[in-house]
């Protein structure tokens, strides 16, 4: 079910940004709530736009994956099959398949069109927490509470490599844009970069005071990585030199593995959920908070950006259980 919003419930900085609309590079976005998607019966864990921009997939503690249409916010279908809560979901590059990571220690590959489960990837010995396709979508990487990272072949559903990656649960895994590297983050406070072809660890990023890493992601061009740590900090690293370039603060993130994102469709922003029930948007270059999106009634666990348009989807935990779509002019 989707609720369409009137145009008046804009974000707090919407007015100030409209003044700068004439500028070539907008100072601030003016995201405003467009749709609220109701449907999940438990806390939502992850929302992801399909690469073709048509669909939004959401996973939740109700063991279901739901597909929503981005254009009108309409509920499309439900994929069910997991026996326990689902922590993460990811799209293949051609938007035809999904992979989901569940507490039932398995991953499942789904064909979106038919809604069928194609493969069940078994091998992790503990909850699977995060997953992603590589750009060619012939490999899947998954991180688990068994402290390992596994690489799977999509075609056969076989585990090709197990990386004894960390000494604590793995909170995030991601391929770079060329598919040659994998980054993994863990509660042990480390970010490791792996050669996807050989499974060798190429680099380890460690912060000074070693806070648990709750999220990590490559930048769209694969040159940087964005990390979130449980000291309410987001950092942008130049991983080739092991240098932290930017630090984004102001939000609250101490307990949950909250997704963060690069927004590159309009201005260049960093978008993240927060434990104060808001979505935060920073200017990537200046590190200023340019907008906060209010509306959720619980921790915003996931915020994601549309691949081509200025749309943000956010989802909140179980006091809220909703997914909200926000749109901006720039």
């Amino acid at each position, binding site marked *: 079910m989707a609720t369409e919003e009137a145009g008046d419930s804009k974000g707090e900085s919407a007015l100030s940004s409209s003044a700068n609309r004439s500028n070539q590079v907008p100072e601030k976005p003016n995201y405003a709530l467009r749709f609220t998607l109701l449907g999940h019966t438990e806390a939502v864990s992850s929302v992801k736009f399909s690469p073709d921009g048509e669909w939004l997939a959401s996973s939740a503690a109700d063991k279901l994956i739901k597909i929503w249409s981005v254009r009108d916010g309409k509920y499309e279908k439900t994929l*069910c099959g997991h026996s326990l809560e*689902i922590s993460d979901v990811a799209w293949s590059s051609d938007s035809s398949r999904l992979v989901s990571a569940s507490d039932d220690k398995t991953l499942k590959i789904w064909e979106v069109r038919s809604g069928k489960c194609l493969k069940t990837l078994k091998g992790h010995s503990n909850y699977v927490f995060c997953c992603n396709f590589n750009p060619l979508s012939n*490999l899947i990487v998954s991180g688990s509470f068994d402290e390992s990272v596994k690489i799977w072949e999509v075609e056969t559903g076989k585990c090709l490599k197990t990386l004894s990656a960390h000494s604590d649960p793995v909170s995030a895994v991601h391929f770079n844009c060329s598919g*040659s590297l994998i980054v993994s983050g863990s509660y042990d406070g480390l970010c490791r970069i792996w050669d996807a072809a050989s499974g060798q660890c190429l680099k380890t990023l460690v912060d000074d005071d070693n806070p648990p890493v709750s999220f990590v992601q490559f930048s769209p061009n694969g040159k940087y990585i964005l990390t979130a740590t449980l000291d309410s900090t987001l950092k942008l690293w130049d991983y080739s030199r092991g240098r932290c370039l930017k630090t984004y603060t102001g939000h609250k993130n101490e307990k949950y593995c909250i997704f963060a994102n690069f927004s590159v469709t309009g201005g260049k922003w960093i978008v993240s959920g927060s434990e104060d029930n808001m979505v935060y948007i920073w200017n990537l270059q200046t590190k200023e908070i340019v907008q906060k999106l209010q509306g959720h009634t619980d921790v915003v666990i996931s915020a994601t950006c549309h691949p081509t348009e200025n749309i943000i989807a956010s989802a909140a935990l*179980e006091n809220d259980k909703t997914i909200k779509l926000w749109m901006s002019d720039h």
Partner: protein
Amino acid sequence: MAHRGGERDFQTSARRMGTSLLFQLSVHERELDLVFLDHSYAKPWSAHPDASSARPTRMLFVTPRRQHESTIQMMDKHLCCVKYVWSGPISSPVYSESDVPIDVETVTSTPVPLYDNQKARSVMNECERHVIFARTDADAPPPPEDWEDHVNRTGWTMAQNKLFNKILKALQSDRLARLANEGACNEPVLRRVAVDKCARRVRQALASVSWDTKLIQWLHTTLVETLSLPMLAAYLDALQTLKGKIPTLIDRMLVSSHTKTGAAGAEALSLLLKRPWDPAVGVLSHNKPSKLPGSPLILIASSGPSSSVFPTSRRHRFWQSQLSCLGKVIPVSTHLLNNGSGVGVLQCLEHMIGAVRSKVLEIHSHFPHKPIVLIGWNTGALVACHVSVMEYVTAVVCLGFPLLTVDGPRGDVDDPLLDMKTPVLFVIGQNSLQCHPEAMEDFREKIRAENSLVVVGGADDNLRISKAKKKSEGLTQSMVDRCIQDEIVDFLTGVLTRAEGHMGSEPRDQDAEKKKKPRDAARRDLAFEVPERGSRPASPAAKLPASPSGSEDLSSVSSSPTSSPKTKVTTVTSAQKSSQIGSSQLLKRHVQRTEAVLTHKQAQVPISSEQTEEVEKEDLRVQLKRHHPSSPLPGSKASKRPKIKVSLISHGDAAGGACAPSQGGAPEVSGGKPVTMTLGQASGAKELTGLLTTAKSSASSEGGLSASPASSAVSSSTAPSAVHTLQSRLVAASPGNSLPGATSASSLLQGLSFSLQDISSKSSGLPASPSPGPAPQATSMKLPTPMQSLGAITTGTSTIVRTIPVATTLSSLGATPGGKPTAIHQLLTNGGLAKLASSLPGLAQISNQASGLKVPTTITLTLRGQPSRITTLSPVGSGAALSEEPAPQALPSSSQQPCKFRGAPVAQWLRAQLLNKRWAVRIHQPFLGNPVGQFCCVL
């Protein structure tokens, strides 16, 4: 390569400067050349004021520092941002963090690979395409995706289990690498590196069981039967790579499968495994190495006494054949006296130097006007330098020069090398242990001789580049080698052109060039008029009578296409050497050009033994042999013969293994066997099976073509013309060959083989069809079109071509029983082969020889009739089978489960985990649990 087309202007100007295409593409100090383009008088910026004889260093594939660090592409977008810390090489602390603009979107454009990507990808997937050949039962359904679970391991021994698991792990890693590298811009190189790695692991695994014949044969059979197709392809790739390195061991492994799959499958498999593919296949063969002016003789100084126990390294052999594209190569090797007992190092060195020296003198006396180039690897380079101090040579090329000695770097005042006056080129590896580029510069300053230095980036003492270098820059060793070769050519061309001017022999050489063609013809006739020469024993002691053409200008002997293709392998034994030095010392170095007649002494140079590799290769093709009863000249067996093998394989047979009598009609040709034709007679055998062997020149008059099985008794004289032309084209049939050594041609050459695959499924027109049709005269050769589709073109090294499928209507390739050579004849003679050569990359050697350098001695044409079903052999693209799982409907949700779901805070899980571990207390936390702070308190 779009890249190439755009730079045409640059290229042509580069040509003028004598640099090669690859060199242009490689990373080097390009601005240097740009200055030269406009200001040829300008002194290079790197020229040393004190060392006028040292030419500026050339860097090959040496990545400049600035490219390492900077991300120049970023600047394209922000042209004003040159000062950015980010894009510049200097990470200056002057700029604060916020000054740094960050571009998270722009993807760095990847460099265009230096090789032909399409072709490289085609050869890369060769094993995948032909994976079915390995299957014993081709009709059986391919193993399912979950084949691993179906492997029945009952009855396996511990060793078998262990070995199988090891191989499996290697193959799985390879699979991961394949998938991860898929679509990468330099995928072929990455794949090559990955396959090499997989091959290494397989080899290690096999070595761990000491290559136990029983075990490895079991392993091979099991793998072939059970592996899924993609995995099997990976396994074949590994085998292919290993086959090139350890052929006998791999053969031992494959024996059992051969008996099961039948000869056809085995043949196909062995063809597939023949040589590892190389990503650079296209670009190297398209850009053939150029010949040197003045047709110099290239003497290769060995870097140690030769020994049967330690044969020369593969790399040196490869380079020897590479160099033979530039001119006539004469390797000089020394044997240990008394089997090495009681011979000191110094003595040994003296021997080595003496051997080279005597060879130089000998050549001077025989070919007074020939420029001599000394080339050596490592120690051999030093030997070459030393000889150049003592004797007159035109130029010296030092590959992997060992500058650093036990006593420190060379170049002290008492170093004899400082007295060198011969122009010298040093080629060193950037990461060489025995040399250092900077120390080399110091050394070069002190040499009075004109000298050049080429530094190969990331290369070792043997000029091999590292794996990381290959990966990061998309290079292959073959490309690097070619660039080095081009550098050598570049240097030698300069030196030789000048030397030519000095000697004033230029007009003569030009004359020789002009005369080439008519002489060819003359020689052709001559060859067949002197059959008696064929019976000449080729024993080392043989004394060669002055050849009929001995009165010809000597320079033409070497520069003419007919004689020079052969690579001469000459071994100067120490016994002979002493006497030769004595006598040849009397000879002046610069003898005026005379119409020299060969002396008997020249003929005394013994022929070195045949290369084992060559033999091995032939052994591979176990083929039906039928000897012709009437062998015209049985006595000439001892002579080394260049060979042309033509084997016709029907793929239908290969796959099905059954005889196809309808195809044949020729009783000798059973379905599964390769149908081959034999030219030649030196062995006296008309080998119907398919060795098309041309005898060496002396015997060529008897050369016959018995292509048709029906006419196995066709006397060779009925079809001489084919052989004649063929030989004069392909084989050094020149009676003018002065030295017997020159006839031992094949030692250096790997041979060249290509398959002509017929995809038109015209198997009905059997190659050896007995029907005497005039049709065959119309040879229809459609070369390039189907090449791409089926085209597995592989050159292991640039001399070697592996499989070049050519669509040819088989019927046209047949030979009529009349003994009239038809298609093959035309193919090989009427410009057909030349056409083939020029149109097919990698056959460069054949066309090369036509213009006078060297010829590959073994040419294998494999003509394959391929039924259309083979096209179904495309890489296994079976879509993911749907393993449907019934979706459980609306399970009762229980949020109370102690699960770690993203919605649960971190601390909850950690705490539970820790508590579990330490006190075995299970705590059920609510779904949204306690924050980290509480967790810490508990601890």
